[in-house]
């Protein structure tokens, strides 16, 4: 028995498919979900969500939201979410620098909140994208054999 995972944002259904396990960024720390989990609704913070399917690992960046867990289903309702493959590292890096510079200049409160949110988003994106890159690099020797 697998888990039916859907990752949904207001703008699109990012992913639907069968997976073996899900590792989600809960408010109080990482939460691992396996099939037959008790019904659960959990608030998420921005972070990395990993879905495993056999040997394969899918990595997503999730920016806030919540997750509904049923014995055979996991539904992630995120404000914004993207696959690791979609993340443009250079853009995320540029966004991080922009946000950091803005924060140094002590902006007015509402701009400050925006900047902090932007900074968090870019940091999560970078983490997700790097994780994927390491994986690709570590897999490389095997594939070249």
């Amino acid at each position: 028995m697998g888990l039916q995972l859907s990752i949904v944002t207001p703008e699109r259904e990012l992913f639907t498919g069968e997976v073996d396990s899900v590792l989600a960024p809960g408010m109080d720390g990482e939460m691992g979900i396996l099939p037959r989990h008790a019904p659960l609704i959990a608030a998420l913070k921005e972070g990395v969500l990993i879905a495993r399917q056999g040997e394969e690992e899918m990595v997503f960046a999730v920016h806030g939201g919540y997750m509904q867990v049923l014995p055979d289903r996991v539904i992630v309702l995120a404000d914004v979410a993207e696959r690791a493959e979609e993340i443009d590292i250079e853009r995320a890096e540029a966004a991080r620098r922009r946000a950091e510079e803005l924060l140094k200049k002590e902006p007015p409160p509402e701009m400050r909140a925006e900047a902090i949110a932007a900074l968090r988003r870019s940091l999560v994106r970078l983490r997700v994208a790097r994780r994927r890159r390491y994986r690709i690099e570590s897999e490389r020797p095997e594939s070249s054999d």
Partner: protein
Amino acid sequence: METLREIRRRIRSIRNLSQVTRALEAVSASNVQRAQAAVLATRPYAHRAWEVIVNLAGIKGIPLHPLLVHRDPPRSALIVLFTSDRGLCGAYNSHIIKVATDFAQRLDVPVRYIAVGRRGRDALWRMRAELVAEFTGLPAVPGFLDLSPVARAAIEEFLEGRADEVFLAYTDYINLLQQRPVVRRLLPLRPTRLDEQAVSEYVVDMRPAPVADYIYEPDPETVLSTVLPRFTELQVYQAALEAATSEHAARQVAMRNATDNAEDLLRDLTLTRNKARQRMITRELLDIAGGAEALRQLEARQ
């Protein structure tokens, strides 16, 4: 009586105009498609989110979330009015502005506004209505993040007690030829009264799910305060997308009519031009014939 040259000039300018309106029609048509697709894409999220809210609202013994609290009787209201930035879309803007202001009058409490779109802002300004905030320059098909400042402004007004009720006034897209201006409730949320909510179209099943014994992580209050503001944002986003779809549809139809009118005019003018040309040719022929006749008579007399 216009001269042939004037008629030709008019034909040329109307032909150019009809090319512009035809291009605008095509652009609007593609925007309608995109906006409509975006509206449909919110459906899975809306449905899930509503399910969670209904479940959470059923739990006894937790304090009512501020976004669910009714103030009875309401003493003030806020209307978020969705209009377009640009014109050339028929009666789209004037309809929704009329419906929103009529609704405001019936409320019988002081009403303030958040204007989304330049047209609505200008109209409210002319009426000397009280504007809390204005948002203009949204993209043709707005994204979720474009609308979250609007939602946040509305939530803040409600939570700080400056508005006891918040409504969304927008144009509901039915089909290309029909769009319906509506006013629907945004806040306070009423998990038992789906029909009043802006989201009602997108949520199919409103019964609480059979699995009610959820574990809440970290606790129900935190989850509810994660879910509710986002759900409010979602409703604002959906209203904006409906409004955008309607705007582009109205513009597409207006532009098609303009193109049709231009073509009618071109047909008429072409006829007038041909008549004028024929008249000129006839006149010239008469001149020549008359001249030749005169010449012949002159020769005959000599």
